[in-house]
Every structure is written in structure tokens, then in C-alpha cells.
């Protein structure tokens, strides 16, 4: 689960954000909608501990994380948070399989080849595992990055505009896969987007 209270952040004194409270239980999905410049990505980075909030609280798995040190935060993030970025980015020198295993390696866990294989099968890119990531199509790459977010069985999946570069068909497919997979591992899913197509799909919504 993940929850926030009175979260604030400031890039500079003139550029301050205050974020609405929300909480999202395990196996639940939360949609955070907002136009550009409303601090969507900032909100996500706060939850992902990539930024340190100037005020307020965040809990993941009932653990207060807003006051963790940088090193603690990195460790916590690697083990408990999976992130799907707006554009799929990978380590280009590595194959799809190695990019997936990299999540295990950097998170300090055993490299689970079986899990990577089964994720690839359920997400439909099993035949591309030995290819380089650049050889995959945009939609395939997005699915690989979802698989990467799931590799460490995190308790929260954060998705930043996962559908903005996809067409309607792929958009629905990706969202479907995301929700299914997070429910399978019992994690909370938080999607941050300006994509109006997702409005109808999710019940719980927060507007920035």
C-alpha cells in the first residue's frame, strides 16, 4: 500500500507544489490526472523517493519513508518500488533479458531468470529476450519496462505517463497488463497521466 499526507515540495521559493492526500491499498489502482506543469512527475518522484519532500508524509507498506537518507532511500526503492517511465529507457548495451535481470542485480536480489521468462511470456515478448532493446518496437519496449518494474516483486508500482506515446489499442493493452500484473503480485498501482483515455478505466482518481 501507499499513502501520502500534506505532501509539499519546492524547486524554488516561487515554484511550490502542494499535493492532495490519497491512499491506495494493495491490489488497488489509483489514477492521478493533471495537465502539464501541475507537478505530476514531481509527485511521482516524491513517491519514488527520487526527490525529498519539503513537508508531509509518505508511507509505503505502513513504513514512513519521507525521512530516509539517500542511501536508505535507494535501497528501499530498489526493493519495494517498481517504476514505469514515460518513455521506455534501457541500458542499451544489454539484451532484454539482461535488462530485466539488472533490476534483480541492482536491487541486491538473486537473478530470477524463470521469473523474467514467465513475465516475458505473459507480457508477450518472450521471443525477444535475447535481442537488444533497441530492436524492439515502442509498444514492446513499454511492455519490457513493465516487466522490469515487476522483477523485484515490489509493493508499489509507479507508472509515469505509461500510455502517452501509444495508440488507443496499445494504450488499453498496456493498462490491462499493468493492472493484471500488479494484482497478481499484490501490489498497489499508481498511474500518473494527462491521458484522458484512462479516465474511464480507473475508479479511484485524484485530480491535480
Amino acid at each position, binding site marked *: 500500500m501507499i499513502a501520502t499526507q500534506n505532501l509539499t515540495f519546492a524547486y524554488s521559493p516561487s515554484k511550490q507544489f502542494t499535493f492532495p492526500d490519497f491512499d491506495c491499498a494493495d491490489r488497488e489502482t489509483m489514477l492521478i490526472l493533471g495537465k502539464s506543469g501541475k507537478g505530476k512527475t514531481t509527485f511521482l518522484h516524491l513517491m519514488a523517493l527520487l526527490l525529498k519532500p519539503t513537508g508531509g508524509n509518505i508511507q509505503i507498506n505502513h513504513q514512513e519513508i519521507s525521512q530516509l537518507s539517500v542511501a536508505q532511500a*535507494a535501497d528501499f*526503492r530498489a526493493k519495494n518500488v517498481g517504476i514505469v517511465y514515460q518513455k521506455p*529507457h534501457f*541500458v542499451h548495451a544489454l539484451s532484454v533479458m539482461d535488462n530485466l535481470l*539488472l533490476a534483480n542485480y*541492482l*536491487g541486491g536480489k538473486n537473478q530470477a531468470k524463470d521469473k523474467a521468462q514467465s513475465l516475458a511470456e505473459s507480457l508477450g515478448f518472450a521471443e525477444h529476450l535475447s535481442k537488444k532493446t533497441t530492436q524492439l518496437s515502442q509498444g514492446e519496449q513499454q511492455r519490457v519496462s513493465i516487466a522490469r518494474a515487476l522483477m523485484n516483486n515490489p509493493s508499489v508500482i509507479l507508472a509515469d505517463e505509461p500510455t502517452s506515446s501509444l495508440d488507443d489499442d496499445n494504450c488499453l493493452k498496456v493498462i490491462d497488463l499493468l493492472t493484471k500484473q500488479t494484482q497478481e503480485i499484490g501490489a498497489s498501482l499508481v498511474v500518473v497521466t494527462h491521458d484522458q483515455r484512462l479516465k474511464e478505466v480507473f475508479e479511484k482518481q485524484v485530480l491535480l
Partner: protein
Amino acid sequence: MSLGIAIISLLLLAGKQIEEKFTRNVAGIDMVIGAKGSPLQLILSSIYQIDAPTGNISLAEANRLTRSPLVKSVIPLSMGDSYQGYRIVGTNQQYLDHFQAEFSEGKTFEKVMEIVLGAKVAQNLGLKIGDTFASQHGFDGEGHAHDEVKFKVVGILKNTNSVLDQIMTTPLESVWAVHEAGHHEEEEGKGANALKLLEEDDHHHDEAEHHEEEQEITSMLIKFRNPAMGMMMARSINQNSTLQTATPAIEINRLFALMGFGIDALKLIALVIIIVSGLSVFVSLYNSLKERKYEMALMLSMGASRTKLFILLLLEGLIISVIGFVIGIFLSRLGLWLMSENIEQNFHYDFNVLSLLIEEIWLFCGALLIGLLAAAIPSLGIYNINISKTLADE
């Protein structure tokens, strides 16, 4: 990177091997006596068989001058003819003994016109025991052929790794015989000029004396019992006779001093190349870090520590240096091999191609250091990456 290392390693190798060759061939010879001229030329022609000989001297005079208790042994040399580019040297058994030559086939020369081949000569010319051939005047293979008398191969030497491999040796008398035959023919055939005729008259008048006194050689290699005392003898010969003496050690040092300038300049150029290549590693790593900033931020967000990524980038620089070094060493060996083929054809000198020098280990350390530095400086940028900003920007 590879290029600079290749050049430096090539210079080290070539320099070392030339020095080795030169010192091996010179070992044990304290002085050379020959006709007046350049002492360096005398050394190069008599000891290394690479330059043209200075001119002839009278055997009798040389013998007279070296009849001294200071002299341990003398080896007469008579040059001027060749066969297919390989020199024929008239000498005696002592010359072969000097190089501790052993026979792979046949025996040493005993009679006039018997000839012993060096290992490389036999191999390259494909001559066997019992073969005969006529020599040519001069060393370029285009001289007038002495067809009247033929040499007979009686022995082939084992490889001695010295100048002996590249020449053919025969008794002194063979060289005289070849040229006498030539003289007679000239006299009978075309008729020579007045001076020659006079000379030839002399020959006929005192046939006996001719063999004793007018026999000429090119030079004489001398070993002293005590080299320090020998210096005094050398001075007296230089001042009081028409001959000159040359000390191999001195002349070779002079030669190396001259070559040293060129080698030093090349070393400097190679060093500059290495530094420039270090800079280019620096620039390319710096650029690739910029390009891969997102990758780095990604790995950081996935839990990698900055130190881990720093070491990763450092290793990348190191691996590039090591590969550069290996390719460089390989290139230098290739270059030396090509050079050696070329030199062997032109000067009948060859190099041993495959040894690794101690200096090259230093070179390796230097290359690693440059690679490390070139990688470390841009890699420090990893500590300045703002993960959130980098991830949000793209």
C-alpha cells in the same frame, strides 16, 4: 592509443635487437686494421659485412705490424666478391672458430676454391654440398662474373645468430685465385692499360715473391692479450704506416650516438601520440557519459550506488587501454617482422620478433595509468547526476 604504443614498442625492440646484434658480432675483437679511410666504414665492412670495404692492404705489411707479443690472434679478411648478393669472405679457420661455428653438414674449407656457407645463405640460395658456382665482382650482384674458376660448396654452418649466417667463407687463397685468373684473362684478351701491364710484368717476374709479398687482403681482425696496451699499438700504426686501425667499441658507440637522435625524436612523437590518444579516450568517455546520463540515472533509480557506476566506467577506460596496448604490441611485432623481412633481403640482417621487453611492461603500466586518468575525470560526473531531473527531462 595502439598506434603510439606500437611505435614506442617497435623502437624499443628494434633498438634493442640492433644493439644486441652489433655487440654479439663485435665480441672479442679489439681492433681492426685496414686501408686508410673512414674508421666507421672499416668496422661496418669488416665486422658487420654491411658497408663497402675501404680498400686493400698488403698482407705482408699487416703481418709485420701485428707481429708483437701484445697480439693474441689475428684473422685476415679478404672481401670484394659476392654470389647472388651474399658476400664471399676470404679468411682462415680462426674466423669460424671466433664465432664458435658448428657444421650442420659437410666440413670446413681446406683447399683453394672450397667454400663454406652460412646457415641463412644456404637456406635462401638453396645450395647443397658439392654444388659449384662462380662469384661476381662487387656486392650488388651485377658485377663482372669470374666465370673462370668455380667455388665448390664443402660445408654448411649451423645458425650462429651472428653475421656468419649471412656470408660465405673460403680460404684467402681462393679470393686471390679468382682475381689472378681474371687478371690473366684481361691481359691476354683485351689488353690492359700500361700500368696494369707493368703490374702484370711484375707478377710474372717474381712469381714467388708475388705470393709472399704482394698478396692483398681487405682487413685484419685483431685480438689483444691486453686491450689497454693495444691502444698504444693502434696509435703507432696510425701514425707510422699507410694503414689505419679502428676500435669497434668506439666506432659503434659513435654510430649509436648518431642514431640516438632519430630514435629519441621518434620516441617523443610516439609519446605525444599516446597522450593525444589518452585525450581522445577522455573526450569519448565524456561524451558517452553525457549520452548515457539517462542510463546512469536509470540504474541509480534502480538501486545502483554511484560508486558502483563509477567503478564500472573506470573499468571501461581500463579495458580500452588494455585492448589498445595489446593491439599496439601486436602491431609493433607485425611491423618488426615486415622490417626484418625487408632488412634481411637488403642487408642480410634479421631480427628475433617475438620477445617481450621489460620496458614494455613499463609501457603497459603507463598506458593503464593514462587510460585510468582519462576515464576517471569524466566518470566523476556520475556523482553529480540529478536522478529526478535527468529522468524527468526525457
